[in-house]
């Protein structure tokens, strides 16, 4: 505001004033951004499993009530090299379909969370398809979207919340152990943390995609665990 007022005073009426006009390359104001490094645990880990490292891409998966959703993926630059840095810029709030209400909670407790993953993009379209394999994910960091801020994210009765406070909007949440504990705290916005939000392809997806219903599979996963539903850690 102050900048363009100065311009107006300096150049008016000979020059224009106001906001710079934008073109179709304008996506809106950037709401949040995360970036990090996507790599494999060993140099030939993917090749040994028969994957082509050149086809490894990153995307963001939103959790939905009935499991991981392939909808509303974040389309990234598909030319990103692997191993290499990735960057995800957010211009929209979390998609409506991604908002979750914890058991026993209300709409005021709604939240959305997502996880950056690496996958084998066989069709090279930059989006994860059902027949494409997830290869890895961020180890201990998730993306949390809160419409109204932490105070409205009251844990359901009998459930566990998060110990720290969170701003409304996007937050990167880092856990000391695993998603289903209460150690989650806000991650300083990148690039404050030089390490970024790294994606590691290790094959141990259960360490990051927590099966919260204690049954086989990874269809249900959550940051906020209901102790009644998930009374103890199941490996």
């Amino acid at each position: 505001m102050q900048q363009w007022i100065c311009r107006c005073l300096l150049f008016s009426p000979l020059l224009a004033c106001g906001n710079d006009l934008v073109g179709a390359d304008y996506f809106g104001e950037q709401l949040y951004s995360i970036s990090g490094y996507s790599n494999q645990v060993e140099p030939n880990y993917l090749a040994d499993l028969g994957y082509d490292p050149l086809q490894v891409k990153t995307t963001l998966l939103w959790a939905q009530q009935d499991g991981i959703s392939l909808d509303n993926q974040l389309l990234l630059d598909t030319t990103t090299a692997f191993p290499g840095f990735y960057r995800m810029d957010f211009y929209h709030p979390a998609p409506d379909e991604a908002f979750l209400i914890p058991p026993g909670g209300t709409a005021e407790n709604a939240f959305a969370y997502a996880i950056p993953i690496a996958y084998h993009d066989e069709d090279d379209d930059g989006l994860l398809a059902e027949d494409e394999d997830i290869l890895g994910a961020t180890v201990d960091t998730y993306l949390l979207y809160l419409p109204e801020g932490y105070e409205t994210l009251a844990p359901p009765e009998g459930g566990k919340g998060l110990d720290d406070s969170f701003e409304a909007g996007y937050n990167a949440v880092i856990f000391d152990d695993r998603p289903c504990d209460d150690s989650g705290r806000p991650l300083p916005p990148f690039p404050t943390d030089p390490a970024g939000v790294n994606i590691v392809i290790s094959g141990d997806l259960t360490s990051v995609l927590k099966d919260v219903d204690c049954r086989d599979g990874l269809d249900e996963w959550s940051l906020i665990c209901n102790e009644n539903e998930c009374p103890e850690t199941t490996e």
Partner: protein
Amino acid sequence: MIAALLASALLSPEADAAERRYAIVVGNNRGDASEQALQYATADASRVVGVLQSLAGVSPADTTLLHNPDADQVRETIARIERRIGADAAEGDQSLLFIYYSGHADADSLHLSGTRLPLSELKDAVEDGAADARLLIIDACRAGAITRLKGASPVAPFEINLSDEATVSEGMAIITAAAPGEDAQESEKLQGGVFTHHLLTGLQGAADASGDHVVSLDEAFEYARDRTILMTSQAPVVQHPKYKYDINGGGDLPLTRLDGARRTGQLLIGLEGEYIVFDAKSTRVVAEFESSIGGIQALPVGRYVVRRRTPARVYEAEVRVEEGQATRIDGGLLTQIPYGQTARRGGASARRVALAVTAGAAGTGALREGMSDSLGGFAGLRLDSAALTADIRVRYTAASGENDYLSVRQEAYAIDATAYRLWDAGRFAGGAGLRVGGERITQAFDSPGLAPDRYTYALHASPVVRGEVSVTTRVSLGVEGGLSAYVLPYSDDNPSPLTAVPYAAVDLSVFAF
């Protein structure tokens, strides 16, 4: 007595053929080496010959036309003609000698292709001549205030003293195109000397104030003088023609006879107004007159454009004047010129401006990459005058753009002011000018994210090329285009404040008056 005799000779074709008229007509575009060449002196001389031969009873055999002669050629010509006049006089015949000169001069001499002919020598030669009546007409120009200098050197202007105290010898009349100290002028519009143009127009009938179909010396001079003063009154220096004579019978000496002239016809007008007659081929102004004189009694055969002006309107007709026939200009023949053209053509008696309401559609190129062209409409007022056409418009345009994240609608509210010059060609007109303006541009976004509205105050300027056609006298349809340079706020993404985009518009102008 002499005038009476000459009048008798002129007015009675069947009279004694021994009464003769001679003409020495000199046109010299080239004066001294230091003087800028004139454009129309020789053309003036040729036109004078045409009128003298067709209307003034001077036969081709008795006419000597000299284009760009030197002083010796003029001396020899005068001497040769004087010998012939002397021979006529020896046989008792009456004679009249016209000497006309158009070219450079100063206070002492005529400038003739690098040579000088002293005025005193010329005057003496004429005064001592054998002709019973001798008429010396000098349209000698040192400078032309309407168009350009006709003589570049800062010399004393051409001057023959025709003050009240001055005298001329018996039987002699001298007419000068300008008073002492004044500069006679050429006109681009008339394609000739101002005084000569009006003198010839008068001799062709416009000066026939008495309506007797004979233009006398007085009538011709008064007509030419009045119109020369009127026309040059718009120039920095007013030109006052002078006239002095000592001829028996005074200024009644008949110069041209309008009835039965060879190779001429009448151009008669029946509607009030101010008339200008152009040669249709060369577009040279042939005559200017008011309706009170009824028309031109003896116009050379040919095709003409007749333009009639009233205070509010201008009409035109193209006619052909046939030998010995009267061509009458009436309302059915005249076509009204569209209001805008009327004002653009100017004229003392015409309405100076024409006001129109204008509206149309306009479009500009995309101001930012990925945006659509801006399309919209405008409305405004337009003013046409002889000097310029100007308009002021209020314009609205809109553009849009979209990507995977949002869609944007861009709207602009602008005020444009344009000044341009139009040249008319029949119903069509074309021209160019400059448009400047300012506008408020807003961008509103449709996005689930955060994309606040943006607004900009921008200036723009554009060279404009315009063409239009008059659909009716009140309505014209125009199209224009240009390249608009916008001054916009800049940023890291758009580091230059200047953006150039094409501009185009179509419009309809309805003239209120």
